[in-house]
């Protein structure tokens, strides 16, 4: 499979000269299966340029949402294939305990927040997913709830040749005094275990995290420790804080990696970066 990052920023899009290298778009990752399956992870603002770049021959797109915070769905209404009747878009995401996925999405895709209503989108098929496994072409998708405020899931995408784990908003260290020692008691472990590529929340520095406990995100150090526990081959840090410019991401990533001395490859996620797996 081929994995391409279209948006790596957390919380809020942050365009500008000092974020141009890593990019200012919010969460969106394209996964192309070896069999041609088109899977998109999250619909942050990065999905707008992705929509324009998809070839017109694509007839089915599976869009997997981890949760419905605005930085993960804001690009949805600007995803051009949604308005192409010949394209079938399957949208997968978690319901809440009281509202279905459709009702939750309608809160954004309806006036006054957005001029187009969800019901007016031609070929959108919704699938509620929480703790499930399903197949898209040759990709076996596992979804499971993870530690983040509100209904939030992470994904594991396994082909016969490689595995990708995607946990863009994840705070496994929350209230875990033994973090990151006990795999059984670590949120997200089963999703990430042994993955060839782990895309993981690394929003804060360790010092910043101390002031954001419970906000649902990780320090870069936590991402490194989690990746080590899970035994992944390659960690891509993701969901960069909008207040971090390119130089700060370089500096924080280098410092944390130098201290942790991981046995796996570490890459700070950047828009346009692509990874071939398997």
């Amino acid at each position, binding site marked *: 499979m081929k994995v391409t990052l279209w948006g790596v920023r957390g919380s809020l899009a942050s365009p500008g000269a000092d974020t141009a290298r890593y990019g200012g778009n919010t969460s969106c990752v394209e996964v192309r299966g070896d069999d041609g399956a088109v899977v998109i992870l999250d619909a942050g603002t990065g999905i707008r340029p992705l929509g324009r770049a998809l070839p017109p021959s694509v007839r089915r797109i599976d869009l997997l949402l981890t949760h419905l915070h605005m930085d993960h769905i804001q690009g949805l209404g600007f995803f051009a294939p949604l308005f192409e009747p010949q394209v079938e878009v399957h949208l997968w995401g*978690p*319901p*809440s*305990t009281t509202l279905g996925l459709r009702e939750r999405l309608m809160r954004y895709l309806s006036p006054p927040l957005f001029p187009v209503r969800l019901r007016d989108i031609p070929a959108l098929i919704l699938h509620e997913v*929480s*703790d*499930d*496994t399903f197949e898209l072409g040759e990709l076996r998708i*596992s*979804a*499971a*709830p*993870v*530690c983040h405020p509100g*209904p939030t899931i992470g994904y*594991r995408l396994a082909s016969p040749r490689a595995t990708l784990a995607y946990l863009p908003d994840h705070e496994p260290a*929350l*209230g*875990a*005094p033994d973090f990151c020692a006990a*795999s*059984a*008691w*670590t*949120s*997200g*472990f*089963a*999703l990430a*275990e042994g993955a060839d590529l782990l895309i993981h929340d690394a929003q804060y520095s360790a010092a910043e995290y101390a002031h954001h406990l419970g906000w649902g995100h990780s320090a870069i150090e936590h991402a490194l420790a989690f990746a080590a526990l899970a035994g992944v081959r390659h960690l891509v840090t993701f969901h960069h804080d909008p207040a971090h410019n390119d130089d700060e991401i370089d500096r924080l990533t280098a410092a944390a990696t130098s201290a942790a001395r991981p046995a796996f490859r570490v890459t700070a996620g950047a828009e346009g970066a692509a990874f071939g797996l398997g």
Partner: protein
Amino acid sequence: MLSAPATQKPIELILARQLASYLAMPIFLVDAAGTLVFYNEPAEGILGRRFDETGEMPASEWAAVFAPADDAGCALPPDKVPLMIAHVERRPVHVCLRIRGFDNVCRQIEATAIPLIAPAGRYVGALAIFWETAQA
């Protein structure tokens, strides 16, 4: 369902354990199979042994090991233990009872037990909160 339940607990159970580890009330936690997977430090005081020493324990063991008895001192069968009621019958219950800890001390306690139901009605386990009312 993710096919690795042996290596990671459900997130709801993880969060329940984290909450229990921060509360001053004694709390007992079992998973969907009824296995005792955690009790917190205040519970260690009542049960007379640290969790790290006992480790996980199947339902057949924990339901009897504390020699539960009713107010009159009559032994409670395992299916009348509050945490077992919450686990098996999936309903909340509040019971006064006596238990004998690992330290061989008999204590009178009140216990409230509730099942833990995750979204889509997924049962992930049960927890019991204890209050020691007296040493019997």
